[in-house]
């Protein structure tokens, strides 16, 4: 059903990563149309599309845009290409395959919001993607699609690709802004929200790569055409990154709401090696665990929330029956410990204690009473940290403990990992 696709419909067209190739398949027609409309008309289309942010929080994009105070300039747009959520690799894919689609989306947003500078903040590890975007931006300037007097109008906008340098927290929008300003990337207190006081103290919108990549379609085909896909509560399509124990890991664009976890798993070839599903984690490393009992839950914001988790940044990590969830939790906790920015004590200290304890538990040398300590540590972090990084550092481990208490208990004093010990040698 290629008609249903929005984001990936042009993937693989000849030369589509170049300006010429992209324009040959209709590229930049959305921007050309946008400059004939008023910002209010574009915001109305975006609102009627029902598009919600794909960076993790799912905030309605049109609404976010309308928070900018009237007549306060300069304004900035920050494109969040920091993608560092464990299990997420969709933004990298969208940049690799369709860099000009992103750039067109960036320019449409920049025109609508009347920003003078758009910064694409891309994580340092994506060096090849940064260079690709640099090349595309240069092509756009050359063709008069960026810079001064864009497309013969009075409108000027500079586009700058800015490389990060290895810090998960810089994906958080205010930390990203601090990092762009040349500081350590640490979150700021909200409010004021970036829309009021963001980059260099000016009104700023931060949007995710996938969010913006939808705009060319929405402007060209209309918000209603976008909203036809998916359901009323979760309109549109989304690129889900499926990884872990599946036959065909990869990015799959599917309509939201009408697709279930089972459908998505099937697209990825099912659980590998004919094994049974033990657990899955939607949304990326931050989100709560789900089990086989949730396979028929639709990929809908509310349905997944009701199941006790979140679609987050659109990942799905699949774990087969041989997986040790204590080991998985340990790796995620280590990640948050490594990436804690150190600004607030609950996160800085909490992730340290959490990590120490998970290593003892995984090695089978923790005592049963330490499980209570683990719950206590997590309870003292969740909701008490400066930003969501610290809160989410507890979500997977606590939800896995609640779903598989016996597995956690079996590690206590076992002297080794009981799950690994029970695994056939070849697994």
């Amino acid at each position, binding site marked *: 059903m290629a008609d249903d696709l929005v984001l990936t419909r042009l993937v693989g067209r000849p030369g589509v990563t170049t300006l010429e190739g992209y324009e040959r398949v209709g590229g930049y027609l959305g921007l050309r149309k946008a400059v004939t409309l008023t910002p209010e008309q574009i915001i109305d289309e975006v609102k009627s599309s029902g598009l919600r942010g794909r960076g993790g929080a799912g905030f309605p994009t049109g609404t976010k845009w309308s928070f900018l105070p009237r007549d306060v300039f300069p304004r900035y747009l920050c494109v969040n290409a920091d*993608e*560092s*959520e*464990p*299990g*997420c*690799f969709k*933004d*990298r*894919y969208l940049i690799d395959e369709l860099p000009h689609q992103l750039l067109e989306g960036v320019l449409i947003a920049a025109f609508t919001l009347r920003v003078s500078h758009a910064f694409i903040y891309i*994580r*340092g*590890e*994506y*060096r*090849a993607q940064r260079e690709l975007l640099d090349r595309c931006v240069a092509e756009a300037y050359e063709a008069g699609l960026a810079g001064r007097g864009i497309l013969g109008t009075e409108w000027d906008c500079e586009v700058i690709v*800015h*490389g*990060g*340098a*290895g*810090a*998960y927290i810089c994906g958080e929008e205010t930390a990203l802004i601090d*990092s762009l300003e*040349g*500081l*350590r*990337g640490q979150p700021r207190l909200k409010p004021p929200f970036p829309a009021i006081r963001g980059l260099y103290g000016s009104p700023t919108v931060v949007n995710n790569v996938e969010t913006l990549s939808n705009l060319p379609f929405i402007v060209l085909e209309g918000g209603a055409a976008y909203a036809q896909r998916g359901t009323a509560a979760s309109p549109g399509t989304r690129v889900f*990154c*499926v*990884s*872990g*124990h599946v036959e065909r*890991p*990869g*990015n799959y664009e599917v309509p939201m709401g009408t697709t279930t976890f089972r459908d998505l798993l099937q697209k990825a070839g099912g659980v590998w090696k004919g094994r049974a599903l033990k657990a899955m*984690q939607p949304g990326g*490393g931050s989100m709560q665990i789900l089990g086989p009992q949730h396979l028929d839950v639709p990929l809908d914001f509310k349905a997944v929330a009701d199941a006790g988790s979140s679609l987050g940044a659109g*990942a799905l*990590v699949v*774990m087969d029956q041989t*997986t040790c969830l204590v*080991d*998985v939790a340990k*790796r*995620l906790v280590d*990640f948050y410990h*490594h*990436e804690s*920015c150190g600004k607030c004590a609950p996160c800085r200290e909490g992730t340290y204690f959490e990590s120490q304890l998970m290593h003892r538990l995984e090695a089978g040398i923790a005592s049963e009473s330490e499980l209570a300590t683990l719950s206590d540590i997590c309870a003292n972090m969740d909701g008490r940290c400066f930003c969501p990084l610290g809160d989410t550092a507890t979500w997977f481990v606590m939800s896995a403990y609640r779903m598989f208490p016996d597995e956690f208990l079996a590690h206590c004093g076992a002297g080794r990992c009981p799950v690994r010990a029970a695994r056939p040698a070849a697994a």
Partner: protein
Amino acid sequence: MLPALWAVQDQFGYLPSAAVAAVAEELELVPSEVAAVSSFYSMYFSHKPGQHFVQVCRNVSCALRGADGILAHLGRVLGVEDGATTADGLFTLEGTVECLGGCGGAPMMQVDRYSYEDLTPDRCDNIIAALRAAPPVEPGRDGGPGGRS
């Protein structure tokens, strides 16, 4: 600030303290302000790593598909522990890294600026052999294309 530090690191392969002082002067800051920033980000090196920086992702998606085995194999092939540099200065092996966004091709590693996905021990051997055979690279230059096999 970050672009300035990148320019230095691309030139020297790490951030020599004299260069950090020069960045500070250029930006009208004191060197400690620059150091406070550079030390926050994991990709800026205060010491020169090997000519090729081999980072093996061991986050969940890669771990589920055998990343620990890949790291151990590379350690044997290169004759170094996780975090160490080979005696000839050619390779630094690093097994502690953020998820590298290559989960679709797990297990994966990044060597310099290129991703190598769907790794097996054989494929690792070939990649290392190719890098060994390649002519010495200039500081800050890449070590050849990667991608999926």
